[in-house]
């Protein structure tokens, strides 16, 4: 602690920790910045003091609520870093976190099983993942408009005993529309109703827990086990 108001920028004889704290806060006066940066590069102890302050101060961000950035931000970022180069579909499938190798293989199979090797989807392909960690349930959904089919693959988990999994499509500001009960086998293929197919990119897909035979009311009656926003691959 010092009362000297004219602490030299190189911190010689001054309170290093104050200088480190100021630096971490971005308060270092412009004329002191150069020497201080130099010190940061050469003086490990000083660098550690700055890092410790950055760590202390970062808790000021704890209360800041996460805000989902607009989807275009991610696309812009990728364009800026990686240019217009199109990424292979397989790589793009990785955008979901927590997706397993097995799921990736199955997703690839879903996407390409009907295609000959030189065929590439022309229209945008949409996909999402619906999962519920507590239930150990993961369902991968890929919609290829050129094939007019929503292909589902349950890569993990299944229905509760004596119950079924029912799939729902939810358009923005609309009630869920049932796409049917998922079969016992992991793979399923669903044709989207035309009005939903047109807006495939805006849909959210959800799965609910329902009595055998599916929801008796036409709306989800049991617990919604998971939902995923469809995004363009």
């Amino acid at each position, binding site marked *: 602690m010092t009362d000297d108001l004219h602490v030299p920028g190189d911190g010689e004889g001054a309170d290093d920790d104050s200088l480190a704290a100021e630096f971490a806060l971005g308060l270092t006066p*412009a004329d002191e910045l150069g020497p201080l940066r130099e010190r940061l590069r050469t003086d490990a102890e000083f660098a550690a003091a700055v890092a410790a302050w950055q760590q202390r101060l970062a808790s000021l961000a704890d209360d800041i609520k996460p805000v989902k950035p607009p989807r275009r931000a991610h696309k812009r970022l990728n364009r800026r870093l990686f240019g217009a180069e199109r990424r292979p579909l397989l790589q793009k499938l*990785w955008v979901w976190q927590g997706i397993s190798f097995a799921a990736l293989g199955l997703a690839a199979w879903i996407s390409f099983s009907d295609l000959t090797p030189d065929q590439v989807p022309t229209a945008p392909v949409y996909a999402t993942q619906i999962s519920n960690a507590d239930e150990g349930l993961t369902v991968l959904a890929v919609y290829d408009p050129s094939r007019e089919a929503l292909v589902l693959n349950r890569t993990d988990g299944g229905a509760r005993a004596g119950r079924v999994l029912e799939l729902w499509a939810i358009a923005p500001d609309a009630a869920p529309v049932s796409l049917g009960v998922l079969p016992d086998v992991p793979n399923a293929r669903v044709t989207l109703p035309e009005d939903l197919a047109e807006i495939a990119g805006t849909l959210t897909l959800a799965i609910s827990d329902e009595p055998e035979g599916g929801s008796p009311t036409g709306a989800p009656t049991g617990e919604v086990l998971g939902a995923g926003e469809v995004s363009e691959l």
Partner: protein
Amino acid sequence: MFGAKDRKKVEKLIGKVALRDRVAFDGLYEATSAKLFGVCLRVLNDKAAAEDAMQDTYVKIWNNADRYQSNGLSPMTWLITIARNTSIDRLRAKKSGNTGFDSVESTLVAPGLTPEQSAVAASEARKLQKCLDGLEKDRAAAVRGAYLDGKSYAELASRFDVPLNTMRTWLRRGLMSLRECMSS
């Protein structure tokens, strides 16, 4: 919101990003962009500017991920510090046309903390809120103003209506009592 499991996950992703793994970079973005966008928005208070700052932040992360492992900060601290500093650079550039404070330098160079130091710093960090409450009100407000609003000494001095050097002295005193409180 970021427990030990998330910490591990984010750490692993940054490690892969350092190896130029674009898939991991996407994963890192998915896992952290909402928090970082929140931080950028808090500092800049403008959606378009926050979007730009967040983009700059991820560009820096992509280009400097290899520096992460050696600098000992917890992964979220590292990411948040880059986002905060980048936002403040942008805020100041808008205000004065120059950036006084180079965020890449100040965040990414620091090679310093040993794992022990890092653990101490992390446990200290949890006390920050309580310790800030224990500071004189104006001093706590000045620390917050500098961190979250990018206020300079000059701006803080005029806000609290004290001479510049007085401001510097009492903010430093505030910071040192803060450190004492956090390490006690």
